[in-house]
């Protein structure tokens, strides 16, 4: 009996030891794989995030001594009407990105698989907006939106409508820039979808064809479900990107007129580098960071549950 117990316990220790050894090896593997990324990360990303957080508790104009003011910046932010305007505008950018930009990107990707001639041309031209520098895009679109003779108004006149003062009018400025945003970033989602679509096996379509499915059915029953992971990740990218949007807005309107196109990003920039309220700007930056983080976690959780249910 005693011996039996001894054997059993030595067996368990052996198992435990093996499991520990296995765990150790796993840990080493994980560390080796992630170490290069982690190192770069800690230095260049985690450090600035922590700096931003700490600056946000100070009243700081850039160089002279900082004064610790606790949460005052955040309290002030909460009562800042311009901040709320910019938050709303950011929400519009998010909506447009998710509901216009991503579907358009998908349509463009589908076009590249369509049974028509000249795919190479389509594929190259569709991508052009994404490889143009934002400086060029901003400048050219300002000319295209020109209230007097710009091509957009020429088109509108041709269709029998009155001139619109696109970027000058507080009611249309945001719409105008959102159009440019859609134009600029759809190609990126196009290549994301294209990369996902080439992964879908031909045999799926072939067997569907044998079953007599038409193009729409094939799209809704094969393509779309298989693209779901890409749609989810595109949405996260679009939302995170939209929350910190800056460049094209800064170039085209600078957030104006009268803050009609102000974003958290442009407002933060102005507070930091024009008004020299670095502490306040850091608070805005940190709020931007938090919102993006929370939204990403939420989407991940929803996505996790979706996968767990086994539904596409």
């Amino acid at each position: 009996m005693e011996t039996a117990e001894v054997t059993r316990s030595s067996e368990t220790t052996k198992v435990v030891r093996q499991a520990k050894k296995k765990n150790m090896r796993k840990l080493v593997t994980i560390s080796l794989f992630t170490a290069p990324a982690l190192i770069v990360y800690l230095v260049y990303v985690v450090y600035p995030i922590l700096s931003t957080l700490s600056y946000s508790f100070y009243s700081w104009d850039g160089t002279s001594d900082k004064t610790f003011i606790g949460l005052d910046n955040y309290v002030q932010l909460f009562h800042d009407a311009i901040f709320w305007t910019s938050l709303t505008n950011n929400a519009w950018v998010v909506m447009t990105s998710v509901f216009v930009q991503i579907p358009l990107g998908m349509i463009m990707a589908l076009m590249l698989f369509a049974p028509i001639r000249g795919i190479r041309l389509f594929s190259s031209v569709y991508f052009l907006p994404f490889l143009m520098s934002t400086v060029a895009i901003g400048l050219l679109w300002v000319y295209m939106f020109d209230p007097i003779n710009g091509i957009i108004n020429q088109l509108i006149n041709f269709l029998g409508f009155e001139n619109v003062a696109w970027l000058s009018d507080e009611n249309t400025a945001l719409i105008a820039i959102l159009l440019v945003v859609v134009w600029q970033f759809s190609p990126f989602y196009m290549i994301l979808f294209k990369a996902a679509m080439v992964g879908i096996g031909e045999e799926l379509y072939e067997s569907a064809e044998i079953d007599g499915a038409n193009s729409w059915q094939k799209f809704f029953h094969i393509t779309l479900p298989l693209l779901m992971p890409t749609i989810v990740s595109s949405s996260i990218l679009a939302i995170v990107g939209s929350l910190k949007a800056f460049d094209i807005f800064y170039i085209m309107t600078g957030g104006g007129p009268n803050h009609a196109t102000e974003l958290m990003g442009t407002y933060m920039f102005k507070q930091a580098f024009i008004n020299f309220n670095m502490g306040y700007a850091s608070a805005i930056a940190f709020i931007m960071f938090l919102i993006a983080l929370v939204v990403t976690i939420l989407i991940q959780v929803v996505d996790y549950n979706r996968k767990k249910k086994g539904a596409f």
Partner: protein
Amino acid sequence: MKKISALLSVMVLMLLAACGGNQGASGNADNGDEKVIEVWHLETGEREKLFQEVAKQFEEDHEGVKIKLLQTPNDAYKQKLAVSMSGGNPPDVFQSWGGGWLKHFVDQGNVKDITENVDQDHYLEMALNNGTFDDKVYGVPLGLSLDVIFYNKVIFEKYNLEEPKTYEEFTEIIKTLKENDVTPLALTNKTKWPGAYYLMNFASRIGGPDLFESAFNREGRGFDDPAYVEAGEYIQELVKMDAFNEGFNGIPYDEGRGRQLMYSGQAAMMDMTISFLNNVREEAPQFEDKLGFFVFPTIEGGEGNDTQVGGATGPVWSVAKESKNPDLAAEFIKALTSKEAAQKFTDRTGTLAAVKDVVPEDEFVKQFYDVAQNASHIQMPYDQTLPPELAELHKDTTQALFGLSMTPEEAANKMEAKAEELLE
């Protein structure tokens, strides 16, 4: 895959090697005995060439000194300088416009007091004041710009118009031009400061040139003074008359659309700084023959008159306190603003010099010079004088006035509230 990865590692190694080699030679550290003065500015064209010539001469006169000029355009320049100041590694010499922006860095203790280094009598007093705080000189001016209304002489002749003296004459001209389908005034107000000149001019004509000084120094009058409210009303009256081109609040200045309206004859007048002359010469030389200008018209019953004009200083040169060779740097900014350099500056760039006794040779520029000589007061732009945050609010509220999305009272009250918070 193997081939690619081998290629990649070779490339990375090459990069590291290449950078390792560069590293020693870069930065603004001194190399051996050579003293390096790093100079940041934002000018291109003839202005930049002039700086390069002065630098070359300076290097010849001072053995073992190297001048390193770096040009960065406007917005990027402000950001680059702000970051380098905050990060504790500013250039030895930097350019500004004087006023509130420079004062911000002075208050932070980042700018060297050069009162002892320079001869104050060398500069025009009004211009030097813009770089002087608490009687200490922190920046010396090279250029002086004026704000006038440019017009197309051919269009004026065609409709028998004459340079207006009063606001009534001005609005008559606007009406005539409108009847003939000419845009009276070109305005590019995405940039905000072109519109701000109207507010400054109206306020000065209505409330007198002391109005701003008094509001700025908190000496009785405020930014909610009735004159400011009235100035806002005048602006909105012009907007409602359709005096400006369509969509002005969305058109940027630098990219040239507003100037294009002038060059092509679609618009007849434009309120702008005299730097416009230089633009004309570069972009549409044949237009210069048609170009005329007048100073902002007077307003009946107002306290101001037409010897009071708007102006601006720039470049204004300063030395960073952190500079390793502060006295040498101060020598260099004296060279940049020497009488000889100033003469070249005015002759080659179509702007006035901020140095005394420098008369422009160019006939057109000479007309600007005469206006400046006869001026009883030169109003520096608010956005350069006020502290940065208030300056920004001034431009934002004025743009909103033009967009008819804010009443003159609202704009004035917002300005005054912020002024009370920021000014002592």
